[in-house]
C-alpha cells in the first residue's frame, strides 16, 4: 500500500507541475498584459519601466519559476477588478459551488441507482425500456436549456421556486451553507436538479450494466443455492459488487460536475466560483482566471488521487497489479 501511495503521489505532483506550466504559458504568454496596464499614449520609457516592473523582460522559465514560488506561498496575484487577492476571492465562493455539486451528485445517486437496478433486473420489461429511453434523453438534453425551461415553468409560470441566488444561508463551522434553511433549500433545489440531470443518466446506465453482468455470475447462483433471500442477494451481494465501478465513476465525475456548475451557476445566478470565472473572462480579469484554473487543477488531481486510493481499498487486485508492474 505504501509503495502504491508514494507512486500515485509522485505522479500527481508531476501532473500538477505540467498543468501549472500549461496554465501559465496559456494565460500569461498569449496576449499582452502591458496593453491592458499601460495607457496607449505612454512613451517608450514608460512601457519599458512597466515591462521591467512586471518582470516580463526576463526569460520565460524564470517568470514561471517566480510564478511557481509565489503560488506555493498561496499568492496567485491580485484581481484587476476587485483589487483583492484572487485566491481569496475564489475560496470565498468555493463553498457555494461545492454545495451545489454535492447536492447534484447526491440527487444523481439517490435517483440513479434504484432506477438502474430495476432496469438491470428486468431488462426487457416495458418500464426498463422506458427508463433507458429516458436516460438517452438525459444524455441529449442541453443542460443550460433545461435550466431555462425549469426557470420558466417553476419560477415564472407556477411561481413555486425562486429563479436565482442562494437564498438565506446559515453558518456551518464558519462556512455559509444554504441547505440548512428552508429558504436556502428552495433556492438550491432547481440548480441542483439541473446539474444532476446528466449524471442521473450516467448512474442509471452504469448500475444497469453492472446489474446485468453480475446477475449472471457464479457467486449469485451460489448465494441463491445457499438459500439466501432474493432481497439479500441483490441488496447485499450484488450491490456491493456493482458499487465499485459506480464509486469510481461518480468520484471522477465530481470534478466534471464542478466544471459544469459554471453553466448552471450562470443561469441561476448562483454565487459560486464558476460564475466568477465567467464574469472574469468577460472583464479580462486574468489573475482570477489563472487562480480558478490552478485551484480546479489541484482539485481534480486530489479527486483522482482519492478515487484511486478508494478503488485500491475496495478492490485489492488493482493495488497488487500496480505494484507488480
Amino acid at each position, binding site marked *: 500500500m505504501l509503495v502504491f501511495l508514494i507512486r500515485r503521489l509522485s505522479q500527481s505532483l508531476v501532473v500538477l507541475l505540467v498543468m501549472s506550466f500549461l496554465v501559465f504559458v496559456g*494565460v500569461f504568454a498569449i496576449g499582452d498584459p502591458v496593453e491592458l496596464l499601460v495607457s496607449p499614449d505612454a512613451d517608450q520609457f514608460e512601457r519599458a519601466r512597466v515591462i521591467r516592473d512586471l518582470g516580463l523582460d526576463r526569460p520565460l522559465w524564470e517568470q514561471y519559476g517566480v510564478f511557481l514560488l509565489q503560488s506555493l506561498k498561496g499568492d496567485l496575484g491580485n484581481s484587476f477588478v476587485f483589487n483583492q487577492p484572487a485566491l481569496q476571492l475564489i475560496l470565498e465562493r468555493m463553498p457555494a459551488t461545492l454545495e451545489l455539486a454535492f447536492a447534484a451528485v447526491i440527487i444523481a445517486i439517490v435517483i440513479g441507482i434504484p432506477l438502474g437496478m430495476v432496469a438491470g433486473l428486468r431488462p426487457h420489461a416495458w418500464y426498463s425500456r422506458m427508463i433507458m429511453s429516458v436516460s*438517452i434523453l438525459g444524455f*441529449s438534453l442541453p443542460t443550460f436549456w433545461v435550466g431555462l425551461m425549469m426557470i*420558466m415553468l417553476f419560477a*415564472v409560470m407556477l411561481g413555486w421556486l425562486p429563479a436565482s441566488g442562494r437564498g438565506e444561508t446559515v453558518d456551518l463551522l464558519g462556512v455559509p451553507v444554504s441547505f440548512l434553511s428552508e429558504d436556502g433549500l428552495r433556492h438550491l433545489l432547481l440548480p441542483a436538479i439541473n446539474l444532476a440531470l446528466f449524471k442521473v443518466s450516467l448512474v442509471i446506465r452504469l448500475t444497469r450494466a453492472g446489474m446485468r453482468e453480475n446477475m449472471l455470475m457464479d457467486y449469485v447462483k451460489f448465494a441463491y443455492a445457499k438459500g439466501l433471500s432474493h432481497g439479500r442477494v441483490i441488496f447485499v451481494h450484488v450491490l456491493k459488487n456493482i458499487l465499485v465501478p459506480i464509486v469510481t465513476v461518480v468520484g471522477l465525475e465530481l*470534478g466534471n460536475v464542478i466544471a459544469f456548475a459554471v*453553466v448552471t451557476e450562470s443561469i441561476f445566478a448562483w454565487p459560486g466560483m464558476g460564475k466568477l470565472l465567467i464574469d472574469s473572462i468577460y472583464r479580462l480579469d486574468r489573475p482570477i*482566471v489563472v487562480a480558478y484554473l490552478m485551484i480546479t487543477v489541484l482539485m481534480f488531481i486530489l479527486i483522482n488521487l482519492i478515487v484511486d486510493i478508494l478503488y485500491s481499498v475496495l478492490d485489492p487486485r488493482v493495488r497488487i497489479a500496480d505494484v507488480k508492474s
Partner: protein
Amino acid sequence: MSSTVETALPNAPVIADEPIPPPQTPFRRFVSDFLESKLAVLGLIVFAITLVIAVLAPWISPQNPYDLQQLDIMNGKLPPGAMDMDETMTFLLGTDDQGRDLLSGIFYGLRISLFVGVASAFISLLIGGALGLFSAYAGGRWDSFLMRVVDLQLSFPAILIALILLAVLGQGIDKVIVALVVTQWAYYARTVRGSALVERGKEYIEAAHCLALGTRRIIFRHLFPNCLPPLIVVVTMRIAYAIMLEATLSFLGIGLPITEPSLGLLIATGFEYMLSGYYWISFFPGVALLVTIVSINLVGDHMRDILNPRLQR
C-alpha cells in the same frame, strides 16, 4: 468482422424450393441489423431532415433573418402564429426582440450548429485517428507518451478546457472549432489505438506482412478499415456532444460571435426575455437543438449495440 465471412459462404445444402439467400456482406448485415430498431430509424430520418434543412436554409426560410432590411422592430416579440404589420406574413414560431422570424432564425442556426459540430468532429477524427494509429503501430515509448497525454487530457472536463481556450483565443467560428478539436481528439486517438492494437495481432495483418506489403499500405488499406466500426459509433456520439458543447459555450457568450447566430446564441437572446414571459424565443431554438441531438444519439446508441462484437447475436 472476420466472423461474418463464414456465414456468407453458401456451401450448405440448399433445399430446392427455398430461394438462395443473397451473400451477406458485413455492410448488408449492418444495414439489416440497423433497420431492426424503429427508434434508430426514426432518429436517422429526423437527422436527415435537420441536415436537409441546414443545407437548404437560405432557400427554404420564410425570411432572411440577418438581412436588416427585411426586419421591422415593430414586429418584435410577437407570439407564435402572429401576423406581421402589413398582414402579409405569418410568424409560425413567433419573433425575437428584433422582429426576426424565429423559424428562419432556427433554420440558419441549425446550419451553423451542424457545421461546427460536423467540422470539428471530422478534424478531430483526422488528428486523433492518425495519432492513435501511429501510437498503436509504433508502440513502445511513443505509445506510452501519447497515451499519458490522452489520459491527462481526458481527466479534465471538456467544457473547462474549451472555456479556457476560448477565453484566451477570443470569439469566432474558427476558434470554436479549434477549441472543440482540442477537447475531442483524445477520444478518437484512444478508440483508434484500442482497436488497432487488437487488429494488429490478428492473422490477416500477419498475412499482409508475409506478402511484404508496405507499412503504409498495411496501415491504411488493412488495419484502418477494420478499426472503423467502433470509430463510427464514437464519431456519431461526438458530433452530438460537439453540437451541445458549442451551444453551451455560445450561450455563455464566449463561443460564436453575434454575427454567427447558432442555436445556442438564439437561446441566450431569449433568456433575457424569459422572465417577462416571452418563452418562445428560447423555447423553440432549444427544441430544435434537442431534436437534433436526440436523433443523433438514437442512431449512435443503436449502432453501438449492433457493432459491439460482445453483444453479437
